């Protein structure tokens, strides 16, 4: 296992994080700007006794990952917008069958083929709503190569804990940034293991059933059809549909406080709060520091968890702040969630389309305008 301090690309750090989390199966299909994850997994997994396969497309990649997870192995795939779109039906299957798995989406500029090499944050809503039907996922947003490592591990832990597809929503900036990454020795890394039916009931979270994997004698039936607690299809029962869909959603919603993570900077007396995630949270921090030097009461709420959306943080702040400034590298996606939670507090969107990142000066200018 790789440990120590390394100069790594974000994508490489993600691959190392997966290995440290116990991922031993990767299925993928090359696509910029995520390809280095597959390439590193192809090199690294066999060394640690894991399987790498390059599938015929992204539909096959997520499908193989779901199969591997049911065979009892932690599994991951990585892609970018076009591939993420192709994966959506089976992300729904993973949600419906409560299959722990990790999907890395290194967002690039869309729609369609868009600008393959240009970073974006345009898949934020798709990550939550991309597959049909009511379901919940978890999505995390890294802002450094170190976090590509740390949050990949966190994604695996959350996926196992809640039996849910978990998405690392990275952007092309972070995935391609070369930075110092500290990899702790394995014994210092918290790794959550899957809970099977043999796990004592006290060990399990409410609403999350234990997982009986294939080949262990449980003779489990897994289906994407609406199913009862035995896994048997119940295509006509209103009661079973209601019970299942509610539980699939509520196991995330009811545990949101345990799942959601944000980072606060200078929020205590802030009058204007910048809300940022991923790459833009870096210039945002700089801008807020500059604003403070200028005597402006600015603060930063950095979203680490994007889904479930950290609405409590926004609701709490909206009771006393004057305005929110939301930074996104899209034409306005997560800002809708902020507006929903801000309940009337002014919300301004600073949108970036195309490769450039917000500069601290533009953010500072926006802060000055609303302060």
């Amino acid at each position, binding site marked *: 296992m*790789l440990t120590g301090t*390394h*100069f*790594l*690309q974000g994508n*490489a750090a993600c691959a190392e994080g997966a290995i440290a989390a116990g991922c*031993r*199966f990767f*299925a993928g299909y090359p696509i910029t700007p995520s390809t280095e994850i597959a390439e*590193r997994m192809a*090199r*690294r997994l*066999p*060394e*640690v*006794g*894991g*399987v790498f*396969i390059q*599938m*015929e*497309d992204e*539909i*096959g990649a997520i*499908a*193989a*990952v*779901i*199969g*591997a*997870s*049911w*065979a*009892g*192995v932690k*599994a991951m795939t990585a892609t970018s917008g076009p591939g993420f779109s192709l994966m959506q*039906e*089976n992300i729904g*299957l993973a949600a419906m069958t409560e299959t722990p798995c990790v999907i890395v989406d290194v967002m690039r500029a869309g729609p369609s083929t868009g600008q393959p090499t240009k970073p974006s944050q345009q898949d934020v809503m798709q990550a939550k709503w991309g597959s049909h039907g009511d379901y919940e996922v978890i999505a995390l947003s890294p802002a450094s190569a170190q976090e590509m490592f740390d949050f990949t591990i966190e994604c695996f832990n959350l996926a196992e804990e809640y039996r849910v597809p978990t998405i690392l929503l990275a952007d092309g900036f972070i995935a391609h940034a*070369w930075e110092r990454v500290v990899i702790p020795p394995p014994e210092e890394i918290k790794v959550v293991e899957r809970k099977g039916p043999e796990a004592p009931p006290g060990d399990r979270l409410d609403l999350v059933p234990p997982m009986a994997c*294939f*080949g*262990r*004698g*449980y*003779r*489990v*039936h*897994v*289906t*994407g*059809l609406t199913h009862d607690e035995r896994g*048997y*299809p119940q295509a006509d029962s209103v009661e079973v549909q209601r019970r299942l869909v509610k539980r699939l959603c509520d196991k995330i919603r009811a545990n949101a406080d345990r799942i959601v993570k944000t980072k606060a900077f200078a929020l205590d007396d802030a009058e204007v709060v910048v809300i940022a995630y991923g790459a833009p949270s870096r210039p945002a921090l700089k801008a807020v520091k500059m604003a403070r030097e200028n005597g402006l009461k600015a603060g930063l709420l950095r979203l680490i968890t994007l889904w479930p959306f950290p609405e409590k943080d926004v609701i709490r702040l909206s009771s006393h702040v004057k305005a929110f400034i939301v930074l996104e590298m899209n034409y306005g996606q997560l800002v809708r969630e902020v507006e929903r939670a801000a309940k009337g507090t002014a919300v301004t969107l600073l949108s970036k389309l195309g490769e450039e990142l917000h500069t601290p000066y533009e953010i500072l200018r926006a802060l000055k305008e609303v302060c």
Partner: protein
Amino acid sequence: MVEKLTFTHPLSKYLRVDRLPHIWCEGCGNGIVLNCFIRALDELGANLDELVVVSGIGCIGRIAGYVNVDSFHTTHGRAIAIATGIKLANPRLKVVVISGDGDLFAIGGNHFIHAARRNVNLTVICVNNFNYGMTGGQLGPTTPLDSITTTSPYGNVESPFNLAHLAASSGAVYVARWTAFHIHELTKSIKASLKRRGFTFIEVISPCPELYGRYNKMGRGVDMMNWLKRVSEVRHGCDPAKAEVSSSKIVVGEFVSVDKPTYDQLIYQLMERVKGGSSVEGGG
């Protein structure tokens, strides 16, 4: 006092009997395939705890819910890709895909040819009823020319795949075709394919009297079975390219049987070779 006698079918341990009756129509070939499959398991003394049945979506896709083993009823077309993940993650498991002509060769065709090319160690059984049964009898990739379906109401103008030929040319190590009439031969082929290593493929031509049969005036289930009996011709070792399927002739038999290293063998050998090494120690 009269003692109440209860009988259990000798093969019921292979079925989730609490899921019966099944959803299939009277005269459908799907039940015959299920029967042959569990008979093959019984005759082989298969370890049911190390067997996984994976299906896609369709009438035959429901088979995964009836067999009393670990089973996955996946999304439409994706059974082989999911089975690939299962097999590679745990090569001890015997993984069997049972699905329809539309599922495996229209929406899932890409996964089929690539799994065959890689020689992923799977048994794939395609129940070919010449149409999409589940959605009400539309045309599919095996619908014969001129056939009437709900989406070819004036006759089908598309040429059908020869599935055995496609499987063989994609790299399958074992290829056989039977019909729902050939229960003994089919059971034998299922046994043979379960014992082999590599991508094995069995096509079962199967009556769908409810839809394909009705639209093409082929009579009831028995009439379709009589038709299968009448037109099929056993030709073991026949070149799959020449193994015709038409209303007047269906060539059946074991067409291909070759040996090749399987994908999981190769990948685990590779793993043994590089295991413990580190291509990244001391750097990025």
